[in-house]
């Protein structure tokens, strides 16, 4: 993905410990082979209306330990398929974070207490800064590790492997 791209959209606020079961519920296990259909249920058990309300470019904003639980890569994949530009949280569970990078969905660690539901945000991925237009404040986010910037820049892990015919980290 283009790291110099600026992202802009509306915030959808969620709490702490948003599990992959809330993002991609097990009862839709059979839809994992039909991701656009599964995406219609994204985050359904945290906010049943989310998939209907979200617009391309909007942001998912969580609290602590976002994405805990299962290794299902379908979770970040359907967040991305729903059009979400980036996921912001105070902290991420390890596998979810890694999966985000692999599927090309920016996952940004920052102080999300400074963001409320519906706030309009502008994000400069390269500059490491979020501008909350509604509150007129700038929020720094922890820069992505270099290895993850490389993978993201190559369009995710498969892009990285194809481009370099193996790892080049």
């Amino acid at each position, binding site marked *: 993905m283009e790291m110099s791209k600026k992202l802009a959209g509306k915030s959808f606020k969620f709490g702490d410990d948003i599990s992959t079961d809330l993002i991609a519920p097990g009862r839709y296990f059979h839809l994992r082979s039909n991701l656009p259909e599964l995406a219609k249920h994204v985050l359904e*058990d945290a906010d049943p209306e989310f998939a209907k309300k979200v617009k391309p470019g909007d942001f998912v904003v969580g609290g602590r330990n976002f994405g805990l639980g299962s290794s299902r890569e379908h979770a970040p994949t359907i967040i991305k398929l729903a059009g979400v530009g980036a996921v912001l949280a105070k902290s991420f569970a*390890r596998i979810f974070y890694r999966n985000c990078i692999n599927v090309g969905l920016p996952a940004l660690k920052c102080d999300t207490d400074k963001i409320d539901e519906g706030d309009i945000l502008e994000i400069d991925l390269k500059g490491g800064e979020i501008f909350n237009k509604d509150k007129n404040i700038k929020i720094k986010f922890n820069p992505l590790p270099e290895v993850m910037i490389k993978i993201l820049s190559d369009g995710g892990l*498969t892009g990285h492997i194809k481009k370099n015919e193996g790892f080049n980290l």
Partner: protein
Amino acid sequence: MGKTISEKIIGKHAGKEVKAGDIVVVDVDVVMAQDGTGPLAVDQIKNMGFKKVKNPDKSIFFIDHAAPSPRKELSNSHMVLRNFANKSGAKISDVGEGVCHQRLIEDYSCPGDIVIGADSHTCTSGALGAFATGMGSTDIAVGFAMAKTWLMVPETIKINLGGKLPKVVFAKDIIISLIGKITSDGATYKALEFGGPLLANLTMDDRFTISNMAVEAGAKTGIFPTDNITKDYLASQNRSDCFKEISTEEDADYKDIINMDCGKLEPMISAPHTVDNTIKISELEKVELNQVFIGTCTNGRLSDLKIAAEILKGKKVAKGVRLIVVPASKKIYTEAIKEGIITDLVESGAAVMAPGCGPCVGVHEGALGDGEVCLSTQNRNFKGRMGNPDSFIYLASPATAAWSAIKGYISDPREVL
């Protein structure tokens, strides 16, 4: 400064000295995916232009999460895995053979290995002294295709287990208690390394339960050193040849050391909807049950079924309660049949299902109704986990589960054992 077990294993697979924080590309020994994550891994292997897996003998697709398949979409996904395994040289572990993590410890993972799997509970193999960790389908696709992955060498939290374990306190109670203490993200990006004098009294089944739930504290792996107990286990699986001494170094650089006096523990419960929402059973208010589930990669092993049968033999499951039992593998199921355990369970009122994940993932075999309450021996109680966001899941040991099934509400196994 000495090395942690994780640093030693990762260094060996990276071909150089490593320390916590380093990012390295490593060779991997065992790669696996299951039926929920495998089809996406297959897509990604093909996207990268690979047709074969690099290391066929230790590349495995497990059909366990929805096995046997409850609907055609999943049957088709299973076909994708069987066809790909057939063409690529990978192994397939099909319907009825058991849960991936149980099958790995029985037949594949060895001390000193790096094991990666597209399932978060891959850390279970850590009990054998392997660096075992869960990843997503794309990472695993690369693992299948190239037998390599990249890792950040984790910092390690040493957990020293000490004290004399009370008679009716089990490995499940130890790990639930620990997760309550360090919370659901207390070990994120870190390895948990278990040690201390109590290890000499922990069976491999105990250790598997503990390693299995390391990820519920956010950990990358939950690793044990190896000893004669590990050696005997591998011998019992006809795999003596893969035993290796795995130990930590005295002056290893731990991020943190937690000393746990297990002599003071009592039976524990994780209450809805997070695993770290823990409470001593003696402090829990009366919780009426609709369903009890004994099984999974956490607690579906022979010793788990045995203690359940000991409690349930000659008694009946309470009216209005459904008891579901799922042995974790065919090997366990067969042994439990031979020992009469399955007969005791069925006669008490249990519905025994084919080896696999059972209702833990919310796909089949025991989805909960609106407002229903389940006590389970599984590792997760997240909202919606068992197929219904309007239901409630409590976690406990098999002994607590079995006694509670008889009583009809969550009950203290010290009343019966």
